[in-house]
C-alpha cells in the first residue's frame, strides 16, 4: 500500500483502492453479520433457562410433567404463585429480607459517606493509616470469618435475629473508597464559598458533597441492596428458625411434604428473584456503573 512514491503509482492506487476497499468491506459485512447473528443466538440460549423457569411456573402441575416440549403453557395459570404466596412463609421471608437488606444498605452508605468525606476533606491524626487499612482490606474475605462471626454474635444472643443477619454485612471498605474518590473530585471552590457563608462540615456533606454525587449514592445503594438480598452464606448460618429466614435461604430450606411440585418451586424462586431483577431492569445504567466502580474501573 506504500505505492505513493511515484505519480503513476498514486494514479494506480486511486483506481485500485476503491475496488479493493469495496471487496474488503463486503467480506467485512458478511463476517460481521455472522458474528452478530451468533451473538444474538447465544444471548437467546443464555436467557432460555430464565424463560423456561417462568413458563414452567405458569403451567398447571400436570402439564409440567407431560412429555414433549411445551414452550408455551396450554393453560396459563397462576396457581403456583397463589400457592407460593399464601401457603408458604414467603411473605414473612420477604419482610425479613427487606428489613435486613435495607438496614445493610442504609448503614453501609451512611458509614461510607461519613468516612469517605472525613478522609477526603478533613485533616486528622491517623488519616493516612486508616486510608491504607481500608485500601488493604478492599476485598475482605468475609467467608473466612464465618466461624468467628458466629461465635461473636452468639455471645450477644444475636443468632436468629435481624441484627445478627445485618451486622457482618456492614463491612464495606469499597464504599468508603468510592465515596472518597468522588469527594476528592468536587471542586474546592464550592467548599470555600460555603465555608465563607459559615457552613460547618455536616452541612457541607449533606448540602454539597452528597447532593453533587447523588448518582453515585443511588448506584451504591442499589448494588448494596442487591448484594444483601442475594447473600446466602451468612443468612444461612445466622438463622435456623423459619420465622427469621431471608427469602434467598428460605426457598432452599423448605420443601413440600408430598413429592416435588415443580411449578410451585419455580414460582417461589421467581418471586424471590423478582425484586432484584426489577431493580436491575429499572436502574440498568446505575447498576453497571456501580459494578465497574467496585471492580476498580472508574466509569
Amino acid at each position, binding site marked *: 500500500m506504500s505505492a505513493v512514491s511515484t505519480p503513476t503509482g498514486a494514479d494506480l492506487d486511486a483506481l485500485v483502492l476503491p475496488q479493493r476497499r469495496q471487496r474488503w468491506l463486503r467480506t467485512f459485512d458478511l463476517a460481521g453479520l455472522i458474528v452478530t447473528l451468533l451473538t444474538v443466538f*447465544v444471548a437467546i440460549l443464555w436467557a432460555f433457562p430464565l424463560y423456561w423457569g417462568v413458563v414452567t411456573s405458569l403451567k398447571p402441575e400436570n402439564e409440567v410433567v407431560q412429555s414433549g416440549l411445551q414452550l408455551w403453557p396450554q393453560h396459563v395459570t397462576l396457581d403456583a404463585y397463589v400457592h407460593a404466596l399464601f401457603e408458604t412463609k414467603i411473605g414473612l421471608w420477604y419482610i425479613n429480607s427487606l428489613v435486613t437488606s435495607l438496614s445493610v444498605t442504609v448503614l453501609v452508605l451512611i458509614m461510607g459517606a461519613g468516612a469517605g468525606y472525613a478522609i477526603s476533606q478533613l485533616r486528622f491524626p491517623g488519616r493516612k493509616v*486508616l486510608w491504607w487499612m481500608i485500601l488493604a*482490606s478492599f476485598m475482605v474475605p468475609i467467608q473466612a470469618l464465618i466461624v468467628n462471626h458466629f461465635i461473636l454474635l452468639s455471645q450477644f444472643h444475636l443468632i436468629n435475629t435481624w441484627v445478627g443477619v445485618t451486622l457482618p454485612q456492614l463491612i464495606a471498605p469499597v464504599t468508603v473508597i468510592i465515596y472518597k474518590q468522588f469527594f476528592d473530585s468536587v471542586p474546592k471552590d464550592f467548599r470555600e464559598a460555603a465555608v465563607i457563608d459559615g457552613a460547618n462540615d455536616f452541612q457541607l456533606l449533606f448540602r454539597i458533597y452528597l447532593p453533587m454525587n447523588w448518582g453515585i449514592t443511588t448506584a451504591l445503594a442499589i448494588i448494596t441492596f442487591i448484594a444483601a438480598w442475594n447473600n446466602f452464606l451468612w443468612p444461612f448460618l445466622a438463622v435456623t428458625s423459619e420465622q427469621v429466614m431471608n427469602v434467598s435461604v428460605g426457598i432452599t430450606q423448605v420443601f413440600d411434604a408430598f413429592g416435588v411440585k415443580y411449578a410451585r418451586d419455580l414460582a417461589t424462586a*421467581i418471586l424471590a428473584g423478582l425484586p432484584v431483577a426489577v431493580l436491575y431492569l429499572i436502574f440498568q445504567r446505575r447498576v453497571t456503573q456501580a459494578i465497574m466502580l467496585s471492580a476498580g474501573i472508574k466509569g
Partner: protein
Amino acid sequence: MLKSKRAEMLTAFVLIAPFVLVYAVLFVYPTAKMVQLSFTNAPLIGDGDFVGFDNYIRVFKDRLFSTAVWDTVYFVLLTVIPSTLLGLLIALGVNRLKGFTQSLVLAAFFLPYILPVSVVYRIWSWMFDKQFGIAQYVISAFTGGTHVAVFRTIPLFMPSVAFITVWWLVGFNVLLFIAGLRNISTEIYEAASLDGASRFAQFRRITWPLIWPVTVLVMTIQLILQLKIFDQVYLFANGGRTDATIVLVQYIYKWAFQKNQGGMGATVSLLLFAIIIIFSVLQYQLLRSRGEK
C-alpha cells in the same frame, strides 16, 4: 485557627467513628480471635485449651482437607478461565451491536448475575431434573436415551456446577470487558484498516494487547471469588451429603458447625484467609500499576 483545627479533628472522628467501630468489632477483632482460636481445641461455643500447632498438623494430615483443596482448585480452573474467555468473546460480539439490540442482548447475559444463588439453583435443578428436565433431551443425545442424575454422578458434579456458575456470572465479566473495549479509541482501528490490516491482525495487534490489563483484572477477581465458593456446591449437593464434592468453605462449615470444633474451623479459616490475602495483594498491585500509567 487552633480552635478550628480541633473542631475539624472532632468532626472527623464523629464521621469515621461508625465505620471504625464496625471495622474493629466485626473485622479486626474476629480476625485476631480466629488466630487465637486456631491454637485451641475449643468447641464452636465455649472455651478450650491451648494445643499449640496440633490443629494445623491435624488439618494437613486430614485426607478430607486434600479433597477440599483439590475440589476448590478444580472448581477454580473450571470457572475462572472459561468465564474470562467467554466474557471476552461475548463482549466483542455485544460491542458490535448498537442501541436497543445491544441493551437487550446485554441484559440477556447480565440478568442471571443479578439473581440470588438459590434462584439459580432452583432453575437449574429443574433444567437438569432427571425425569422431566429439558436438558435431559441434550443428555439423551449423548447417552443414547438414558437420563442422567447429573448432580448425583460425582465425576459430572463439579463440571456441571462450574457450567452453571459460568452461566450465572459471565455477565459481570462481559461488563468489564465492554468497558475496556470502549476505552480503545476508534482512531487506532481506522488507522489500522487504512493500512490494510485484516480483522484478525487488528484483534491480535490492537485489541488483545490493549484489553490484556482488563483480562488480568477479570481473572484475579474471579479467582478470589471462586476460591470462596460455597453456595452452589452446597445447594446442588443437597446440603453436602457427600464428602467427595467438598470445597474449602464447606470444609470450614463441616468442622465448625457440623462437628462442633471451633478450633479446627478457625484453623482452616485462617489458611483460606491467608490464601485469599495473597491473591488480593497480587490484585491490588495489578490495579495500582494500572492506575499509575
